[in-house]
């Protein structure tokens, strides 16, 4: 499949089956618009959408073999769970025996067997969303679109269903496109990710690969939670100079970098509150400390910029005091004046 809607906004994407394809971006970054174009609900203003070697740009949703699950729990209000799951099969005029068999199978997979005779209003949010998922699965579509399907579920259910989703789709040959606004969710689901920013696809590739080596600052920002720390840095000779107090030697791998000004990107968990070998110390003023059960997230100020450090263990700091933070400089990312990742 190759939806290339390269008109005003570059959104060239080639999606394949077998693994999750994730669309990651904030609200209004264009995830839903892209999904709607893939489904045939919206037409692109330019460019083309190809599916299995066929141009399907002008083909309506009814005639494409797609299914979609929305953020809201969408089911037919006056059908019970069985009828809801069966509805796409009824539209396709399949035989009763066939419908019974397929619905039973999918209901089993999604643990809905006990609930088949209930109405959607009598189900919990998780069960309603399972029903919607079952409706999407039963069709055996070539393309399954999931638009933030877990966003409206509470935490426990979200975790549970997130674990199940990849298993559910594992044996099916369909292409799954999953839109999410949470970087952590994208990393957990794995597969391939397209990072979206203001309607543009900034990068597309293996999720872990984008995380490790984002092409540019935008992609790094989209796939980072808490946000990636950035600062201006200068390379002169064999030293990186952050400010008059903080500098460190250029590693052998980066020797080829030209002497110039760069933007350094440091992920929050590469800034620690305790010293390690090769770590470079910065002094910052503590602004906020967020302590979760086993992790400390500390917002601090360096040279007028707010940075975030995330490290395991509980580290309590008095707000307003100065503290030492240690940057794992080997893991830093450098972006040039075009915000592109520097590769040497």
């Amino acid at each position, binding site marked *: 499949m190759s939806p290339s809607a390269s008109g005003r906004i570059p959104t060239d994407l080639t999606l394949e089956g077998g693994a999750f394809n994730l669309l990651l971006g904030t609200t209004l970054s264009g995830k839903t618009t892209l999904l709607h174009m893939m489904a045939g609900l919206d037409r692109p203003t330019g460019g083309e959408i190809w599916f299995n070697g066929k141009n399907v740009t002008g083909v309506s949703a009814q005639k494409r073999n797609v*299914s979609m699950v929305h953020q809201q729990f969408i089911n037919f209000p006056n059908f019970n769970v069985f009828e809801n799951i069966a509805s796409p099969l009824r539209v396709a005029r399949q035989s009763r025996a066939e419908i019974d068999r397929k619905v039973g199978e999918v209901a089993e997979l999604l643990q809905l067997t006990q609930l088949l005779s209930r109405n959607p209003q009598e189900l919990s949010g998780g069960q309603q969303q399972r029903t919607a998922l079952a409706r999407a699965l039963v069709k055996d579509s070539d393309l399954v679109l999931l638009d933030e399907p877990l966003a409206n579920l509470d935490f426990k259910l979200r975790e549970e269903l997130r674990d199940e989703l990849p298993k559910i789709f594992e044996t099916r040959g369909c292409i799954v496109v999953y839109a999410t606004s949470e970087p952590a969710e994208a990393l957990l689901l794995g597969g391939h990710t397209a990072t979206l920013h203001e309607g543009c696809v900034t990068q597309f590739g293996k999720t872990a690969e984008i995380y490790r080596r984002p092409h540019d600052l935008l992609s790094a920002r989209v796939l980072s939670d808490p946000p990636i720390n950035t600062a201006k840095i200068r390379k002169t000779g064999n030293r990186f100079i952050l400010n008059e107090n903080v500098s460190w030697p250029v590693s052998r791998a980066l020797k080829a970098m030209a002497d110039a000004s760069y933007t350094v990107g440091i992920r929050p968990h590469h800034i620690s509150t305790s010293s390690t070998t090769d770590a470079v110390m910065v002094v910052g003023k503590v602004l906020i400390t967020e302590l979760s059960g086993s992790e400390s997230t500390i917002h601090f100020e360096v040279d007028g910029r707010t940075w975030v450090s995330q490290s395991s263990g509980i580290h309590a700091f008095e707000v307003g005091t100065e503290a030492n933070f240690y940057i794992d400089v080997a893991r830093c990312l450098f972006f040039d004046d075009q915000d592109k990742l520097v590769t040497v």
Partner: protein
Amino acid sequence: MSQKIAHPKAWLFVLPVVLLVAFNAIIPLMTVVNYSVQETFGNNLFFWEGVRWFQDVLRSERYQASLMRQLTFTGIILLIEIPLGVAIALSMPRKGPWVSVCLVLMALPLLIPWNVVGAMWNIFSLPDIGLLGRTLNGLGFDYDYTQGPLAAWFTVILMDVWHWTSLVVLLAYAGLSSIPQPYYHAAKIDGASTWAIIRYIELPKMKRVLAIAILLRFMDSFMIYTEPFVLTGGGPGNTTTFLSIDLVKVALGQFDLGPAAAMSLIYFLIILLLSWLFYTLIMRNEQQ
């Protein structure tokens, strides 16, 4: 369950409402009850009559005929206005600049005072100078609402449909606009036809507002007075004498206060009973 603590002072908070309802509804109603069980003469002389007026009214052919006319009228306008209102609401645009234009056009008839509506249709339908009357006669129909009962009914119903379908449209439209867009997307992706979308998404989602629309239209049409009174005055003969017109004739025309009071109470109870029936039926359906 925790034990509820009784606080006698709490009643003080309810008192204003009790007083308001008493002045507003209970005391006027009780004066009617008072008249309905007594014979009234001048000089404030009253004689106890028990249930005689009620028996008289229920047995009277005149009352039964008005009641039948009322039921027929209400039935017909519900059968026309509800489906028509839903159909218009479905065909109205859901977004864009035309939405407000349509809504204003729809709301216009509702803003016209009832007696003006009656007077408007009175002139509009006159066979010699009215646009509708002349047109119909020009087309070869023998149309004169002051002479023919059928023409009178036709005009009264047409007037009510013109005046009140908008209310159903606005309510149905409100119900439609509250359906989230993803429902339509989901239906489209499932390959559902336009009719299936109406039947399985829009109508079920409109059920609540439609129940309210039916209830409102039922109550209002059952109490209709001003418009037919101005249009036909209950005629020709008494073919369009609905319950309230009949009631006014008895109470103020003949000054039979006892029977009129009994009639009012029966009238009120019918509306109460039928509204309650409608409501429970529709709401029970909802729960299933």
